[in-house]
Each structure stands twice: as structure tokens, then as C-alpha cells.
């Protein structure tokens, strides 16, 4: 059962997330009808699931909520701020009680009843609402008797999968029975439709089951058959041989049993009691109801796949890409045109396969945003500050597990921003800033990394305070000369705290070292930039877990390198002498001055004086830099393998890939190359 409970909980959590997003949208737009419908639907599903698992406490709770939204969607009630806040509070409570359905944990019980009374107040604001009831068991009215049942299906009875024989079997299970079938006469065999039902039955059954139980047998057949049920005896008589013999005799020819005859026969049998027949059961046809249009849901259907299977799939795809590279190479060296076509097709297919399978573990960062929006909203209420939450780059995709690991650190950072960064509206106004503060979450790709930034326009971090604190904690000495960036790094040291007052909300700044650890566990880096009164920006950089990239394969002195295509802007051909004779290291390209790096030189190969090189202009943050190589081999799909830990200091190499001929090409991190180059230039400049 644990697996089932786990599934219920997982599904409940997804439903609650869904609910929360819709509610937040409704906050800005209370008359958004489709979202109201969505809220209602989600609540309905959650209620259904909860009662399936016998979690009646939860089911009843949701039922009351659902009543409110049912009324809203029928325009019997308006969605007020009070209702919305109440619903959000109820949502938070639900997140807890799906784990504690008996309300055992402290606080849950009180909250539960408090919320229920609040909800009911709102719910009753409209018209009368019906209380929720789990399906009550039917009150059985058991008394012995013998029944006469005439069952005559319509001719199209069989056309919805019904099987009359099964119904008769069901009756027979209720007690001793006697069944007489009849067939309508078939007039003309040639016009006879064999799928039509021409049989009917008379059934006598002796049972102590209630009339309802008998009716129940025909519950699905009500509309498609004529069903007459009569209880003609309060005792059982079928097992009486005399009765049976006489009954049989009454229809020696295949005629139906006639109720009156049977009653007479029964009466003629000496028994203790004879009772009158019961009234013919009135089988009412259900009243026709107007058809409601079925809403089309725009949900994206999804299935769950085990992550082991995904890992295996990705490994196989990686190997496929490598093998396909060998095939491409082979076909280049052979002059079969047909082989070339096939090889190209395989390349296209494997590329698509790679994109889809590696995309499977990727989830948009948008998924996290809803949670943060909620956080900002709640905190601005609590702190009495006016803050707006903006997101940029929500479509940026990250591996699902990374997103899950990032959520807590990001929440903490946002909490900090709101608590210590953003000033109160009045203070801001005095400073000449807009009353409303801003917290922005931005995500984007660069090279083979993904960047996530939390930017606020609050009061910034006072570098001097940090410096003082760092000195007092012994992280640095008074005389040390460190850049602002280096000083800010101390914020991530354990035991560091710049908050003067320990607030309830974010606790002490101690959390930052844990945040940094979470990020480094993901092999990422985190850094802080801040300007007093302008705000603070926290930047998290994470390596993309994609291990197959589109790259540009280049050659320098016979050694192959791969530059990620995602950073490449344009390629030019340049003269080597132009590069070497240039003192300010700028080349004129397309009428722009572009800084460049002579990679041959940088990598300490022999420098070529004559001839040409290829200059690949890549983007590096805001600027564009040219990187020169001997020649460009072509585009290449690289399965990036980690390069050994021994090369961890050579961080401009982000990995290696195995080419079709078995040789190795090194994958370059252009950002690091620029960094390295800048360092060297500084050195040389000083010499």
C-alpha cells in the first residue's frame, strides 16, 4: 500500500501546485473564467482521489472549498480577496495534511477547524450548499420472499456491450430460481438483424435479498428493457417440488409464465402463509437533462518514467552519436554516393534523437517561479514592503534534479533580498526611488553554462561593513588589499552574518554558506555584486548537464579543439602578420574593433609568421572576442566526456570528445580562455 500512498501524495502535490498557479493568476484577474474552472476541476479531482484512499478528512475539507468555487463559476458568487486569501491558506494547510490525514500533528487540528469554519462562512454566502457524504451504505431491507421477474430487453439491448445472461446469473445467485426463456418470432430471416435481441425471460427467484438489491441487478438495464418485479410470496416456494411441477406444466409450450397463474399455483400449494403480491415496481425513466458541453482541457498529458531508464537511454544515445561520427568519417573516405546519403540521414536522425532524449530530463525554470511568486507576495505582506517579482528567461531549461536542488537556496536568497535588501516604501521614496521595490529572477545560457541571477534594487550591501566583519572574524587582515568582489565572497564563509538584527523571516545570514555549498555540490559557482542604494545581484553559474553539444571543430598545429557553437558568432579569415604586428590586440572586422586572442600563441605552439588563420568571433558575456585557429574543420556533434581530474587547473578545457578516427579533441571554454588571456596580458603589461 505504501506505493499507492506515495502515488496519491505525489499526485496530490502536483494538483496543489497546479491549484496555486491558478489562484495566483486569479489574484490579478479575478474574472478569468477558465482559471476558475481549472481551480474547480483540480479540487474535484483532489476530492475524488482523497476519498478513494479513504482520506475522508481531506475529502470533506476539499469539498467545502469546492463548493465555493462551484458557486463562483456559476456566477452565484464573486471571487473576493477574502476568499482568495482563505483559499491560499487552505492550500498551505492541505500541503501539510496530505502527510497527516488524521490531524495528529500539533497545530494541524486547530488550523483545520478554524479554516473549515472560515470556508463554510464563505460557502454559505451563496445559496444552500450540500454537505459532503461518502457513499453511505444502503440500508438493507431483508426479508424472505419469492419474486416473479419479467425481463424483456429491447431489441438494441446488446449494442452497448450488455449481456442479459450475466444479469440472469446475478439473479440466480440471490437464491434458488427457475428461469423460462422466450423468443420473439422471427418473421423474415432475410431482414432479421442478428445483433438484435429477441429473447426475454421469466424468472422466479426465492431470496431474502431486498427489493432494492433485485432492482440493483438491472441498474444498467433500466432504460433498455422492460423489467417487472413482483414479490408474490413472503416465503420461499421454488424448492417446493409440487409448485415447481405445476409451474412447469403451465407453460409446456414455450409461453411465458403468467403472473396470475403462478400466483394461483402458489396458492394451491398448502403452505402456512400466503401473502398478497407487491405493487409492480415503477421503473421511472430518468428525466432528460440538457447536455452540458464538454470542456476541452488544454492540459499537457505526461507520464512518469524512472530516471534509471532515462540514464540508460542517454548513455545509448551518446554512444550512438559517437558511432555515427565514425560512420560519417568512413563515408567521407569512401566514394560511395549512396553511403554518403545514408550517413547524412543517420546523422540527422541521431541529432534529433539526441535533442529529444536529452531534453527529457529538462524542465523549464518557470516551474520554480510560481513558488517564488508566492514567497514574494507573502513576504511583502508580512514585512509591510511593496515588492514586485519579475522573471526573465523562464523558458530556460535545466535538469529536473538541479531545479529541485536549487529551489531551497534560491528561496533563501530571495528571502534575504526582501528582508535586508529592499527598503520600506517610504524610505525608498525619500531616496528618490520608486515606492515599489523589485526582485528579479533571470536565467540564461552562455557557452556550456546556465546562469541564474537574483537582482534586487534595494539598498545594496555595504562593502565596508563586510570588510569590518571579515577582519573581526579573522578571515582577512586589516592591511590586506582585496577587491570588492573578493570581499563580497566572505559572505559565503561559515559563521558570517551581516544582519544586525536576527529577524524571524530569514534568520541570520548564516544560511549563505549552506547556499554556496549547495551550488558547489552542483559543480557551480556563486558570486555577489552590489552597489550601495542601487541594489544587489547574486549570480549562480551552473554547468549544463547536457553532454552532447553542437560544436565547431578546429585545428591548431595538428591538435583538434571543439568550440561550442552556442557562443560562436562569426568566422573571418585574417592574415597572421596582421595579428602579430598588432600592439593593441584589436582587429578591424566589419568596421568594428574586435579584441582577439592568438590561440596558437596562447597555447605555446610555434607562431606562424606567414599565411592566414581563421578567426572565430565568440560572445563572452557582453563583449565579443575573436579567437584564432589554424583552420576550421567543420561543424561537429561532440559527445563531451569529462577530462581527468588531473587537468582541473586547466579549466579552459571543459572536456574532451572522441572523434570518428579515435583521436581526441579538446572542448574549450571560451570564457575561461578570455579570463586566462586577460591575466597574462596584465602580467606582460607589468613587466
Amino acid at each position, binding site marked *: 500500500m505504501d506505493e499507492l500512498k506515495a502515488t496519491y501524495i505525489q499526485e496530490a502535490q502536483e494538483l496543489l501546485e497546479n491549484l496555486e498557479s491558478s489562484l495566483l493568476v486569479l489574484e490579478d484577474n479575478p474574472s478569468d473564467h477558465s482559471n476558475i474552472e481549472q481551480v474547480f476541476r483540480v479540487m474535484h479531482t483532489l476530492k475524488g482521489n482523497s476519498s478513494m484512499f479513504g482520506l475522508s478528512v481531506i475529502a470533506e475539507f476539499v469539498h467545502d472549498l469546492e463548493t465555493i468555487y462551484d458557486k463562483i463559476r456559476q456566477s452565484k458568487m464573486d471571487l473576493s480577496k477574502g476568499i482568495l486569501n482563505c483559499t491560499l491558506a487552505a492550500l498551505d494547510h492541505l500541503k501539510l495534511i496530505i502527510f497527516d490525514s488524521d490531524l495528529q500533528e500539533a497545530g494541524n487540528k486547530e488550523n483545520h477547524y478554524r479554516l473549515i469554519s472560515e470556508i463554510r462562512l464563505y460557502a454559505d454566502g451563496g445559496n444552500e450548499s450540500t454537505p459532503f457524504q461518502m457513499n453511505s451504505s444502503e440500508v438493507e431491507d431483508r426479508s424472505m420472499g419469492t419474486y416473479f421477474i419479467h425481463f424483456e430487453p429491447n431489441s438494441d439491448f446488446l449494442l452497448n456491450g450488455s449481456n442479459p445472461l450475466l444479469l440472469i446469473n446475478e439473479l440466480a445467485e440471490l437464491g434458488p430460481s427457475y428461469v423460462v426463456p422466450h423468443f420473439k418470432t422471427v418473421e423474415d430471416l432475410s431482414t432479421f438483424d442478428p445483433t438484435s435481441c429477441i429473447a426475454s425471460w421469466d424468472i422466479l427467484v426465492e431470496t431474502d435479498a431486498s427489493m432494492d438489491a433485485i432492482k440493483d441487478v438491472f441498474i444498467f438495464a433500466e432504460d433498455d428493457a422492460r423489467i417487472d418485479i413482483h414479490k408474490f410470496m413472503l416465503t420461499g416456494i421454488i424448492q417446493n417440488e409440487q409448485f415447481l411441477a405445476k409451474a412447469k406444466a403451465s407453460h409446456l409450450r414455450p409461453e411465458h409464465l403468467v403472473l396470475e397463474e403462478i400466483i394461483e399455483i402458489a396458492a394451491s400449494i398448502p403452505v402456512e402463509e400466503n401473502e398478497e403480491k407487491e405493487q409492480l415496481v415503477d421503473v421511472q425513466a430518468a428525466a432528460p437533462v440538457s447536455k452540458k458541453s464538454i470542456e476541452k482541457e488544454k492540459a499537457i498529458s505526461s507520464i512518469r518514467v524512472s530516471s534509471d531508464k532515462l540514464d540508460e537511454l542517454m548513455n545509448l544515445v551518446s554512444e550512438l552519436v559517437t558511432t555515427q561520427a565514425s560512420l560519417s568519417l568512413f563515408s567521407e573516405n569512401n566514394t560511395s554516393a549512396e553511403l554518403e546519403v545514408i550517413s547524412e540521414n543517420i546523422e540527422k536522425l541521431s541529432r534529433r534523437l539526441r535533442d529529444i532524449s536529452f531534453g527529457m530530463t529538462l524542465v523549464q525554470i518557470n516551474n520554480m517561479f510560481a513558488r517564488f511568486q508566492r514567497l514574494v507576495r507573502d513576504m511583502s505582506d508580512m514585512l509591510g514592503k511593496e515588492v514586485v517579482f519579475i522573471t526573465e528567461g523562464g523558458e530556460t531549461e535545466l535538469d529536473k534534479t538541479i531545479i529541485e536542488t536549487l529551489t531551497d537556496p534560491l528561496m533563501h536568497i530571495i528571502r534575504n533580498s526582501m528582508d535586508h535588501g529592499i527598503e520600506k516604501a517610504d524610505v525608498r521614496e525619500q531616496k528618490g526611488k520608486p515606492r515599489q521595490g523589485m526582485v528579479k529572477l533571470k536565467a540564461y545560457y552562455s557557452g556550456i553554462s546556465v546562469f541564474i541571477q537574483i537582482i534586487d534594487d534595494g539598498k545594496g550591501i555595504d562593502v565596508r561593513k563586510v570588510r569590518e566583519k571579515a577582519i573581526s572574524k579573522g578571515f582577512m587582515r586589516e592591511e590586506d588589499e582585496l577587491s570588492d568582489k573578493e570581499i563580497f565572497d566572505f559572505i559565503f564563509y561559515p559563521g558570517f552574518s551581516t544582519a544586525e538584527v536576527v529577524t524571524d523571516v530569514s534568520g541570520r545570514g548564516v544560511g549563505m554558506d549552506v547556499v554556496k555549498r549547495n551550488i558547489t555540490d552542483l559543480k557551480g559557482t556563486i558570486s555577489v555584486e552590489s552597489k550601495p542604494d542601487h541594489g544587489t545581484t547574486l549570480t549562480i553559474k551552473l554547468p549544463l548537464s547536457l553532454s552532447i553539444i553542437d560544436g565547431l571543430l578546429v585545428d591548431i598545429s595538428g591538435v583538434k579543439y571543439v568550440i561550442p557553437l552556442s557562443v560562436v558568432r562569426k568566422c573571418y579569415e585574417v592574415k597572421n602578420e596582421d595579428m602579430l604586428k598588432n600592439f593593441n590586440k584589436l582587429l578591424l572586422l566589419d568596421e568594428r574593433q574586435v579584441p582577439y586572442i592568438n590561440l596558437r600563441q596562447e597555447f605555446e605552439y610555434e607562431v606562424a609568421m606567414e599565411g592566414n588563420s581563421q578567426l572565430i568571433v565568440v560572445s563572452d558575456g557582453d563583449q565579443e572576442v575573436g579567437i584564432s585557429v589554424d583552420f576550421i574543420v567543420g561543424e561537429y556533434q561532440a559527445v563531451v566526456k569529462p577530462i581527468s*581530474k*588531473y587537468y582541473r587547473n586547466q579549466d579552459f*578545457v571543459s572536456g574532451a570528445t572522441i572523434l570518428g578516427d579515435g583521436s581526441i579533441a579538446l572542448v574549450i571554454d571560451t570564457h575561461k580562455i578570455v579570463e586566462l588571456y586577460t591575466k597574462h596580458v596584465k602580467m606582460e603589461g607589468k613587466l
Partner: protein
Amino acid sequence: MKTEDGNELLIGQTKSFLSFKLDSEHFAIPVMKIMEILEVPKITKVPQAPVFLVGVINLRGAVLPVIDTRVKFGMTPIDFTINTCILVVNITFNDEEIMVGALVDFVSEVFDYDERKIKPSPTIVTKYRSDYIEGMIQEDDHFMMVLNIDKVFSLNDLESIVETKIEKTEELL
């Protein structure tokens, strides 16, 4: 099993070793640590790496770093001859197992040796860092140094060449 002295010779104390040469010196490594022995394939050099890191090779789809063992021992860099081999060894570093290729001039033989007979390395200052050497084996007329390859190829010694170059330059200023 008993030796002539009547002492119990536990089977577990006889170990297999592989011996190889760097220049004229003999060394030995426990066979357990060796995954395979390769002829030298094409080595791809990684720029700006310490001198003892020769480059990387493709070992059945995995990228294996190759270290010039001679340089590690302060000798001149390796001269590739027909006898030069790569020993693919498994070293343990910080509880992690890492594969590395070690370039050697000549692979001699595999032999069994009673571990208890391994002599401790002499306390007089040796040419080589004492933590590299676990002990000495005397065989016929020559000595073999038994290596602690976890220490020899430790990842702690990477901060060598490149940083010092920059540090030295900074000092000059």
C-alpha cells in the same frame, strides 16, 4: 604452510609485483593496482599543463590522462622507444578511484614476493621523496624500489608548474 624456521607462512603475504625501469633504475608496483599495459598510442597534449602531464589518450571511449613517470622522479622527460609502455593504474585519492596512465621506459617482469621480506627504505636522504617509496626489494644484484603509487600520482601535486610561473613573475614585479 611452514617455513624452515617453523613459522606459519600465510598465503596472503606473498604478493605479485610488476617491475619496470625508468632510465637505469628499477621499480616495482603491486600487480593488483595495474589494470592493463599498453603500447603508446597517439597522445593529445593539453596546453599549459604541468610538464609531467603528457596528455590524454583514448582508451576504448574513455579519456585517460598520461603521466611521464620519469618527470615525477626528477628525471629528464621520456624518450619514446619501442619499449616504452603505458601502465594503466588505479590510484586511490580521497576515497575515490582514479585511472591514470603511467609512462615507463621498459616493463621487466611479473614476480611473486613475500611482503615481509621487503626492506624499509633507507633513512638517509634519498634521491626521491620518501613517501613515494614503500620499501626495497633486493633481487640478484640490483635493488628495486617498491612504489606507493597513490602517493606518486597523487592529485595534490598539480599546483606545480603553472602557478609557480605566474607567482615567480609576480615576485619579479
